[in-house]
């Protein structure tokens, strides 16, 4: 032992090769799995890219730092599944760049918050959380309801995600702004067009209770109301996605 070590220590080239080998291990373990990522990401019926309105909501979620207190990752633990629902699939964050798994739960996990509460509740809660939930320490975001959503940036947002591998078509990108406004307008009758362009699980309605305009509140509530609702778990057998 002693002798081998001493020999290695005195041989510059051998020592450099050993350092290179050890230092590259970390890289190998992080990078190699990415080449076979399709083995990790499950077939998940119903999974689709975000609609422009949902994406705008997601951008607001990131901008306001919601991930600092809310995770979006239901772990394979009984306590998590009992409280929040089916454990999260890799496929459910396949279009997230970056993912919002989070590492801290000051508030509850939001991976399956979609449909749990009404739009009205989300709006009232986002404006003044402690008015609705006794003892809540969440800050209020009343300005969301007063801020008109900037839809002009949406084509660029979709384009960026397209470059990261999200399968947005050029047509979807071109009319992203219009689609965002259409999704918040139930009266407009755009539901069929949005369903055709995205999927039939797109929810089309006025989300913030103010049909006269599309606000950041519309976008954020649209995003929250679709979280965890896309994948049809009736079609998935746990044996097929066992990991």
């Amino acid at each position, binding site marked *: 032992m*002693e002798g081998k070590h001493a020999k290695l220590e005195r041989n510059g080239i051998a020592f450099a090769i050993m350092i290179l080998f050890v230092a590259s291990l970390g890289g190998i373990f992080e990078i190699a799995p990415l080449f*076979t990522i399709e083995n990790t990401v499950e077939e998940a019926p119903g999974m689709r890219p975000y609609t422009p309105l949902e994406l705008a909501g997601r951008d607001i979620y990131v901008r306001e730092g919601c991930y600092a207190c809310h995770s979006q990752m239901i772990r394979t633990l009984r306590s998590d*599944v009992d409280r929040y629902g089916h454990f999260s699939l890799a496929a459910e964050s396949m279009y997230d760049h970056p993912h919002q798994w989070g590492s801290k739960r000051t508030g509850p996990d939001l991976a399956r918050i979609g449909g749990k509460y009404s739009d009205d509740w989300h709006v009232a809660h986002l404006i003044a959380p402690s008015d*609705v*939930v*006794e003892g809540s320490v969440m800050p209020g975001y009343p300005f969301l309801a007063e801020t008109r959503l900037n839809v002009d940036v949406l084509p660029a947002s979709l384009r960026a995600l397209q470059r990261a591998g999200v399968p947005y078509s050029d047509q979807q990108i071109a009319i992203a702004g219009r689609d965002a406004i259409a999704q918040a307008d139930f009266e407009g009758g755009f539901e069929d067009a949005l369903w055709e362009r995205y999927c039939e699980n797109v929810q089309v309605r006025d989300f913030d209770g103010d049909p006269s305009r599309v606000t950041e509140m519309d976008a954020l509530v649209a995003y929250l109301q679709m979280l965890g609702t896309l994948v049809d778990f009736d079609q998935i057998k746990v044996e097929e996605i066992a*990991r």
Partner: protein
Amino acid sequence: MKPERDEISGQETTGHEWNGIKELNTPMPKAFHIWLWLSIAVSVLLWILYPSFPFIKSYAGGILGYSSRIAVTDDVAAGRAQRSEAFAPFETMSVDELAADPGLRDAYEDEIAVLYRDNCSACHGRNATGQTGFPNLTDDQWLWSGTPEEIEYTLQVGINSTHNDTRIAEMPAIGKDQWLEKGEIADVIDHVLLLSRQDHDPDAAARGAALFADNCASCHGDDGMGGLENGAPNLTDATWIYGGDRQSLHDTVNNGRAGVMPHWSDRLTEAEIRKLTLYIWWAGQDDGDS
């Protein structure tokens, strides 16, 4: 070359010399080496037993065939089985039968409260007394009847929810959609204030009576008592979801209302819905008159 031994400590030196300074060779203690190799051995063992490295087509599954997803699925199923034993009556009995058994409340109410707080309290409050926009569940005023069976159905399909069989009740935007003129709306509101025995302008209320009969009575009834079959609230009592003062009434009549109760059939099991049904029904049994 044999390293030189230091005379004072008796230890070997590294054999290097820098400007006359030599260094003792003090290698890691044996215990550290043993610990390091042991942990490497343990990790190799774990690689063999449990899923580890990715391959091109698949990954090393490990000889135990362990999957955290299958493990948690079994775990949750075991928990469900345990709960269905602990809450046995809720597995087999209908809500009517459960409601007829007075002993169940003392035995189960505290346990079901956990389920209530996790799913319902955000809107209806910790004590089920509701808040603006979200009805009080402890009083005797019901939109869709307070029988256990109807409460259960509301929990399953929701109100104005995304469920296919959802209950639907919508207050139209009488003002915004220009069913009535501004003055007419004020008259109708005075009539509603009269119905609920609040301060009102008698002349306006009288003018509003005919408008109410034409536009509102089809849902709320000629007498304003509402109807449990269409979810129209009773306007003659002191219970208001969105407030019964003139300004709140104006907001309601002008902009309409369509409160949403989510459906729970996808999120909760049938037994859990029965538990919550009874929990809510029990909460309504306290005010002495029922």
